[in-house]
């Protein structure tokens, strides 16, 4: 199992959980597993056959766009961080 960190803006879709476990060996499989359990996440994370352009996905601190994208391998015990931009400052 891998741990996926859910950003605050998406927690309403994951019953308020800030971390969820997901199954799969690649980012694609993990996101598929997540979306199958929390279907409302789909539009927030996925765009066609790719990660939505306004979301960054990090595996062990590296942006998967600089690795193998959706095919980036995720090892057991790794943490995946989903990160949409936040603008708040006031």
């Amino acid at each position, binding site marked *: 199992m891998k741990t996926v960190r859910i950003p605050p803006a998406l927690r309403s879709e994951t019953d308020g959980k800030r971390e969820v476990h997901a199954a799969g060996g690649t980012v694609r499989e993990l996101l598929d597993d997540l979306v199958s359990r929390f279907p409302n996440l789909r539009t927030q994370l996925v765009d066609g056959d790719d990660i939505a352009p306004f979301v960054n996905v990090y595996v062990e601190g590296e942006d998967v766009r600089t690795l193998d994208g959706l095919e980036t391998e995720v090892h057991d015990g790794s943490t995946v961080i989903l990160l949409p931009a936040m603008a*708040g*400052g*006031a």
Partner: protein
Amino acid sequence: MANYRDLLQQVKAEIDEVDVARAREILDTGAPDRPLLVDVRELDEWSEGRIPGAIHIPRGFLESRIEQAAPDRAHPILLYCAGGSRSAFAAKSLGELGYANVTSLAGGYTDWKRSGLPTEMPRSLDAAKRRRYSRHLLIPEVGEEGQLKLLDSRILLIGAGGLGSPASLYLAAAGVGRLGIVDDDRVDESNLQRQIAHSTERLGEWKADSARRTIEALNPDVEVVTYKERITSENVDRILADGWQVIVDGADNFPTRYLINDASVWHDVPVVHGSIYRFEGQVTVFTPHAGPCYRCLFPTPPPPEMAPSCAEGGVLGVLPGIVGSLQASEALKLALGAGESLAGRLLLFDALATEFNEVTLRRDPDCPVCGEHPTITEYIDYVEFCSGRPTHA
């Protein structure tokens, strides 16, 4: 028992000395062989003139401070005092501390100056500033020189709200000489749960004015420049033309974030970025051309429904205190040229879990603004760009 003269002769016989002519030659050596030049005189002597390039460690603090200034014991060190006696004793001490390549300037500063060699008058802090910033003066990374740098520095804050409040107060307290505040908003009751630069009696005042009053009460050394306007494509060049060295971005919306990014890349000004939502914060530093920019991190703004603001989703009052203080810390480091900035790293803070995470940020060679072949070279309609509607290319 030896008297002072005997002891001095004995010490001089054990150490290496150079005369001013030779010292000049050694100091003209290019780095990395150029010796570290240390002035071991007292503060009042140092304040009246020094050899250019010297650092100041009074004789009494030499043993305790030299390791910080010269971690490599093999690197050459040239010591001087007024006449060459104190520096001779100092050289002996450094030898005992394991410094292998220490010389003392025979004749000291007096001979140097008499030979017509260049000297400089260090600027120094007056007694009041010395008291106010005493805890900075004790830190080797700041010291008098660093404090003078801070007093000369010019930092622009975008927003005097949640992030801008703590950031501006700490920058002001630290003695940043000139602080710019851009904010077109007035103090509202709902701000006071977190925006600590303001107060109940200032309700309805311009935030920029309210923050200025708080800052002036805290530290009269700081000159505050207020811009009671929203930063836009039309005024950003005028505001940046006032010579700001660092921008602290505490904006509350995406169009402003992208605008500040593009302007900072084109004006070559680093941005200390902070953002907050509910219990979580993000902090990083964007150094144009040397590191990634905001568009390298987030090329596309999220659709508005996916990016609720604090006004819509709420924020823990203390969160901007933590994130804004981290921004102040990064801005001070940039002004001082000290330490490792957060450039290339995004720091994520989760107050609920009390957890810091860090992810790596890289420059995007295809970035439309700071990439190799930029496609955006002038200000765009940022509101439309962030509206989620298709934009004109």
